[in-house]
């Protein structure tokens, strides 16, 4: 039960990291495009 919990936690951390990286890329891209002249 404890091992399962740890595995679930590491998958959740990985998903959060991927989401954060993608969100950072999109945020910088949108900001850059909006300020493109």
């Amino acid at each position, binding site marked *: *039960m*404890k091992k399962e*919990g*740890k595995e679930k*936690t590491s998958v959740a951390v990985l*998903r*959060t990291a991927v*989401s*954060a990286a*993608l*969100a*950072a890329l*999109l*945020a*910088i*891209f*949108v*900001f*850059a*495009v*909006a*300020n*493109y*002249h």
Partner: protein
Amino acid sequence: MREFFNGLWNALSSNATSAIITIALLFALFFYVTTLLQRNNARWLIAIMVAYVAATGVLFMNLEGEKSPLQYVFIVGAFILAVLILFATEIKRDIWGMGAKKTPEIKRPDRNGGAERDVDRYIDEIVKATQNMSKNDVGAIIILANGNMPKAVVESGVVIDSEISSALIESVFFPKTPLHDGAMIINGSKIHAAGCFLPLSQEVNLPKELGTRHRAGIGVTETINVTALIVSEETGIISIAREGKIKRYVDSEMLRQTLKEYYWQELLDNKD
């Protein structure tokens, strides 16, 4: 390409504070949307979002004439708004869950395994009560909450705040008693309230044999992050509702597993 990075650099250097705040807000928005889509198995929509942002970005950069930064923000905002509308129920659940505490009544596991023994007892009591009610065709709905039930729902019933026991659970749902028709809310080691009225699901595709009790179980899990255990009055069938979806014909093992997930995850979180 160079102009793209020059524009970014100029915007950052001309007013760094407002640039950082804008990027932080955009990051928060995109982070929420991507995690929302991940949680709801809509990863394909993340790919569409990335493609949409990139394509409209390239088109915007190649537009002739006067351009306002807001125009592009609105173009991206329209897509995000559409996603938010599509997942309105899940967002409502997130908002309700914001103030949720982890089950406060469960003690930190001690060296002698005291909390573990307590949890095993709670699980045994709930399983015993549910199976007895199922055998005798007594209708019941039990909500496994984490202190995240809206106050209005709790106040629609009677606050009990008592130890979990199969005898008490069965007594509450015994037909013709004043509280038997509402839902019982369990918060960790306590029966928090009983006789509570829950929001009903408006889902039109539910099987006809599911009555109001099942609709209430599904309805509450659509908007609040809780698990509902339902015993049918007509058939004695035990069902489990989670995240707006119902699983019927639940046996004692599945019921025990669901309760373990509810209690043990909490203990594991506390241990970390």
